[in-house]
Structure formats: C-alpha cells, structure tokens
C-alpha cells in the first residue's frame, strides 16, 4: 500500500510553482516516516520542488528533531515505531512547538481524521495520496505565499475580495458571485500563488473530506473563472495540470 502512493500522480514537481518560476523557496520540513523507501522518494521529490527535508525514521528521534530544530511544516506518519504519530504531535504541542503538522495515515478513515486533528494536527492526508496533493498541502501549511489570514481584503493583480462586505471587484468593476463561488474564490485568493487541489477545495469550501471522483469541482471553478475573467485579458485563475488550481498575478 505504501508503494502505491509513490506512483500516484508521480513526482509532479515540474508543476510546482516554486520550480517553474525559478523562485527559491527556502521551506524546510521535517518528515517522520518509518517506511524508508517512501521517505527517500518523498525527500527527493520535495527537494526537486525546492523544499529541504529532514528525515526521522521513528517517533522518538522525530520528536527530538522537532523539538530541537525549527521547521516550517512537519509531516508525521500516524504509525511509527517507538512512539506513535499522534503522541509525537501532542508531545510537541505540549512543549510549545506550534509548527503546522500534516498527518499521513494508512488508516484513512473519517474518525481517524478527527482524532488526528484533535491531537493537534493541522491537516490530514490518507494514504495512498498523489505527491502533488501532499506538496500542495505542505506549501499551503507552510504559508510562504498567499495572504495573511487576518487581512480583510485579498488582492491578486486587479482582483479584490472584501471579506467583510463580501464584495468582489476587478479593475474597480463589481463582480456578482453566488455565496459558494465567493467562498471558493476566497480560499483560492488566500492561497494565492499556491497550488490548491480539488480535494482541498472540497474540504475547505464544502467541508467534505474525500476525493471528488468526478469533475464537480472543475465545473465550479470554471464557472467562477468565467465570472472573474469574462471581460479581462489577463488570466488569473489557472489550471495546474495533474494537480489543481492556482490564482496568481502573472504580471
């Protein structure tokens, strides 16, 4: 099972925004994973995406590294030798380490997600997963780009979204959106410059946690796109093939 995820989607690093734009993302992550083959694969794939990876192969050493060093994101497997993943997370939190944690789990079940997030995890990805999905989530957790959460107005190029008045304008011209379209755009803009996968959209806009097996999300995104780009030449909302979507100022 662990190996299935490695082929899943492939190392879609070519699509990673950081690489394509030649930006040097100095993100540093800690990967706690006992499957050495999977860890080697992930380390290589992350490196190709411009992310530095430290690897720990069991819970105790992972906890040690997570406490001693500073990371942008930690990826923690749920089942680990010597100390299980959830206990590593709660111990880190108890020690005042608030680094965002993404939980990897072979269990992949709804209640596992809930217990994982309750233990202090920030995101949860069941195996098998596509690397592009993992990369997108790690980048969003690392929050190197995008808009600070507390901003009341999100801006990308000439597109403006006011979270208080729920108004969307582009080039000063108001765009009318359905409530769901507004939330979709809000999420995309908050993570501007980062790839957002379909699963992430379903999770954050509709609050359902599974892989949308059909083109449901695509249809919503294309409707949104037609609304915000109808009268403008500069495309903002792009499809990242094999991964998801990204809103970005190309200028």
């Amino acid at each position, binding site marked *: 099972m662990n190996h*299935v995820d490695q*082929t*899943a*989607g*492939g190392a*879609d690093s070519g699509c990673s925004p950081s690489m394509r734009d030649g930006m040097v993302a100095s993100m540093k992550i800690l990967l706690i994973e006992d499957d050495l083959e999977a860890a080697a694969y992930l380390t290589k794939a992350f490196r190709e995406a411009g992310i530095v990876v430290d690897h720990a192969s069991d819970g105790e050493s992972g906890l040690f590294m997570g406490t001693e060093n500073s990371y942008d994101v930690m990826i923690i497997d749920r089942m680990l030798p010597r100390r299980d993943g959830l206990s590593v997370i709660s111990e880190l939190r108890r020690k005042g380490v608030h680094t965002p944690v993404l939980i990897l789990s072979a269990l*992949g*079940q*709804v*209640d596992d997600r*809930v217990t994982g997030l309750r233990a202090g995890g920030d995101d949860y990805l*069941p195996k*098998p997963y*596509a690397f592009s999905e993992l990369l997108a989530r790690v980048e969003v957790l690392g929050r190197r780009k995008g808009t600070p959460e507390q901003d009341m107005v999100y801006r990308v190029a000439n597109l403006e979204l006011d979270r208080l008045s729920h108004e969307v304008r582009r080039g000063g011209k108001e765009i009318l959106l359905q409530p*769901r379209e507004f939330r979709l755009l809000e999420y995309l803009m908050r993570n501007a410059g980062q790839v957002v996968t379909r699963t992430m959209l379903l999770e954050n806009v*509709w609050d*359902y*946690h*599974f*892989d949308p*097996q*059909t*083109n*449901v999300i695509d*249809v*919503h995104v294309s*409707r949104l796109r037609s609304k915000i780009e109808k009268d403008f030449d500069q495309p903002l909302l792009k499809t990242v*093939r*094999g991964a998801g979507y990204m809103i970005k100022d190309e200028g």
Partner: protein
Amino acid sequence: MTTFRVLYKSTAVRLSALYIVLFAICAAFLVFYVTALSERILGQQTRDTLQQEVSDIQRAYGRGGMNAMLRMMERRARQPGANLYIIASPTGEILTGNVASVEPGVFETEGWTLIPFRYERYSESGATTDKHQANGHVFVLDNGLRILVGRDLGEPQKLRFLVRRALMVALGVMGLGALVIWFGIGRNALKRIDRMSAASTKIMAGDLSQRLPVGGSGDEFDRMSESLNAMLGRIEKLNEGLRQVSDNIAHDLKTPLTRLRNKAADAIGRKNEDGRRAALEGIIAESDQLIRTFDALLMISRVEAGSVAAEMSFVDLSAIVADSVDLYEPVAEEAGLSLVADIQPDVGVQGNRELIGQAIFNLIDNAIKYGVGAEAGARIRMRLVKEEGGIRICVADNGPGVPADRRDEVTKRFVRLDESRSKPGTGLGLSLVEAVMELHSGRLELSDTDPDNAAARGLTATMVFPAPEQ
C-alpha cells in the same frame, strides 16, 4: 485388536477405565475395612460371651461344687451350636468335654489363648474327624483341674469368606459393565467423531459445502455439529462473496493496468516532448483512477466492518441534501440535465455526515451519468422527506432505468450493467451507498421512476433511514 487399540486411544474410554480402576481400589479398601471392623466386633462379642460363661461356671462351682458345675456344663454343651467345654487334669489330659482332642499345651497358660488353637470334634459316628480352630479361655480350679471354655472360629471365617466373595463378584460385574460401556458408548462416540473428522478433512481440502453430520438426538455432539455447521455456512457465504469480489477486482483492475502499460509504452515511443508529456499525464490520470478504485474498495470494507460506527453524531440531512444540490447543480447543468430538489427542512438523523454525504453524491453522480440524453428533457429530482416509516432521500432520474430482475446485482461490487464500461466510474458507487445505509440501520431501495414509460423507466434510488426514536 485394532479396535481395542483405537478404543484405548479414545479419551472417553481412557477416562472411564481410569474411573473404574479408581472405583475398584476404593471399593476394595472399603470392603477390607468393613470385614476387619466386623471381625473385630465379632471377636469382641465372642470374648464377652466366653467371659460370661467362665464367670457362670465359676459361680456354679463356688455355689454347688463339682456337681453343680458339671451339670451346668453338661446342659450347656448339649445346646445346638454350643461352645467348647473341656475339663482337663493338671497335666493337660482331657477328662471330659464335648471335644475329642486339642492341640497340646493349650491348658498350660491361664486366661485367653493368645492364638487360635486346633481341636477335633466328636463326629456323629463317634470317631474323631475334622480339625477346627477355636479361641478359648482357660482357668484353674482350686483342686487343680483346668477348665477351658472356647468358641469355634468357623463363624468369623465364614463371614470373611462371604464378604470377599461378594467383593469379587461385585468387581467382576463392574469390570464387565465397564467393557460394555467401552464398547457401547466409546465406540459409538468414536464413530461419530470419525465421521466428523472425515467431514472436516473434506472441508479442509476446500469443499466448503460439506457439513458435519447431525444425528438428530440433540445431544452435545449434535449441538456442536450444528453450531460448527452454522459457522461453516457463514464462512462459505463470506468466502463466496470474497471470491466474487476478488474475481471482479482481478477483472476490473486488469483492464486499467493493461491500459496503463500501453500508455507507458506509448510514452517511451514518443519523440517530441509535448507528446511524451501528454502520454505521461494520461498515465497519471489512469493511476489516479486505480487509486480511487482502491480507495472506494477500502472505504466500503471499512464501512461494512462497522469501524466508522464510533464517529456518529447528529447529522442535518436537510443541509447535506442542500449541499449536494449546490455541489452538483452546475455539473448536472453542464451535462444537460436539470436538477430539482424538494427538501423538507430540519430533518436529521444520528449518523456519519461524511459517509451520508458521499452516498448522496454517488447517487447524484449515477443519476447524471445514466440520466443524460433522455428525450423529454433529462431531469433529476431529489427529495428529502420524513414519513411515518422513516426518512427518505430519493434521487430520481428519467434515464433508461434498471430492469427489476437486475436490481440486486447493481449494488454488488464492480457490477456495471453497461457491459462496454463506456461511462467512467469504479462500479463501486452503489455498493458504498448500500454499505453506508446498512451502517445506519437503513436500506437502499431501487425502483422505477416512471414504470409506464417503457423507453425511459428511469431509476429512483432511495436511501431509507429508520425513523428516529421520539
């Protein structure tokens, strides 16, 4: 002889043999104890009687001299089963008495003879005959004559003999009974167990349709066989399901894997970068589809195992149905269908929101997939209603529908009525819906949307939740 060896190997027989041996030892001990005790009591009684005789004789002698004593002894000696009465000279010669001769030296010590002595009786013909044993008490008169009063030991010896013979007979009967029991019960049980092991050997060899024999008497063996048979039935059913699933998996995964392989071969063959990239993307899409299939399979088996039952909470069905309309309306529209919903507000159940959501999404997905292209305007009607009999969520399309005789089939894993598999999908959608409904103690009902319209009966899939307790 083999039978005996086999019998000996049987636990029941070994146990009963051991029991019999133990019982025999206990019985023997008891018998010997009883004989010893009765002999002692009998001996005590004899001594008491003799003591009494002795003092009677002494009293008679003291009162009336030799004459009175002799008369008394003579009278008593004539009684049937009389004691032994002997008057002997100081030298030990028998002067008179109802005994022909005694062992020499019996008169030498006064008081109780320490060991039984031998004596001879007068036979009826007057000749001395058989030898007997007796215990006795000797005393000496003031004139030097020695008097012996004794009792024959025949009676206690006879008793001991009787008791021992009874014991032998009892042990013999017991042993015989044990043999009968060995042969009857032991062999019978053995035969039944043999039949059972023969049946289980066949089962082990892979014939799960075999059942253990049931005698019909309702005894322990039958009860055991029955419960084992019930277990076998369950295993057979599960195994059958498993076999079918793995057959289907093998079949359904082979096709995409072959496609995957061909696409990879194609990618290698391509010369230009763009073409290769497109081919690789096709490979990724194909792999994703495979992963989805595995995910769905795992999901179904987890739901069926009930491991998600812990994560149950109050679920607002009205909100979920509204969500699903919101999520799928654009998709339906894009596909040329209209999606209309009639949602009763504030309907909820105890359940798992994610699973119920996914089940509804699957139904809408199916409705879109198979409902497209209806002539009179493809339409999906959704309805959430709370009725007496339970809460119903209906998803109705006006597509070709599913023939009544094939409705059971479509909820099975990987079963797709569309043999060509032209529509995308895993063939697991309805299986998941059914598993989810089972988890919620509900059911999935499939029916015609419009039974009168032979061309487009349409399919109405209804998730029925049991009415919540008030």
